[in-house]
């Protein structure tokens, strides 16, 4: 049973659109949710993270919406750019610094 699940393996949007990447989790003990961006041949890079005490976290074009009751969260990328084309991983941990449990990733393609 996957503890962290990303509903779409791939997503394609047009430049300028808002990309929405979804994630759900099973373990109620998870309280820290980072999103990582990964380009081919590179390691994951932290994009934005949220703790379960919040329901929204915004950083520039990136926003996380978090629903603790439903155990799901989503990453919104506003004004998508071709340079945002990458794989995005949702991850979770029971406390920051503990092991991260990763979702399967969503490969985002932004078409110009």
């Amino acid at each position, binding site marked *: 049973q*996957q503890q962290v699940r990303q509903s779409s393996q791939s997503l394609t949007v047009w430049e300028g659109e808002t990309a929405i990447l979804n994630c759900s989790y099973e373990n109620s003990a998870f309280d820290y949710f*980072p999103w*990582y961006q990964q380009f081919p*041949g*590179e*390691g*994951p*890079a*932290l994009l934005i*993270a949220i703790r379960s005490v919040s329901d929204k976290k915004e950083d520039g074009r990136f926003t996380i919406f978090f629903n603790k009751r439903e155990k799901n969260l989503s990453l919104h990328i506003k004004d998508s750019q071709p340079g945002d084309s990458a794989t995005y*991983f949702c991850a979770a941990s029971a*406390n*920051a*610094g*503990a*092991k*991260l*449990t*990763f*979702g*399967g*990733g969503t490969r985002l393609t932004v078409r110009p």
Partner: protein
Amino acid sequence: GPKVLQIPSHQIIDMGQMVTLNCDPVSNHLYFYWYKQILGQQMEFLVNFYNGKVMEKSKLFKDQFSVERPDGSYFTLKIQPTALEDSAVYFCASSLLKDTQYFGPGTRLLVL
């Protein structure tokens, strides 16, 4: 952002041989992690390490695996002996405290 380096980037070895994967974590970080990613699958936690000791390990961290950070230099993952199923990309991560984990670019290990 903070950089984690991994050496080598690629390694090909014969089954049964020993391999050591090296990680150069962010200089002032105190917590260290290894994750494994098999092609097309989720990234999975192997082990984390603090103050010279393994804090937690997963079922994937077999008896043939060991980690150490001698003299505060590289954080290493040693596999002895290797098996075919050890072929994967291994990512090292580090964090200052129990907070954001920064990942290296990975070592691609192929066991023949």
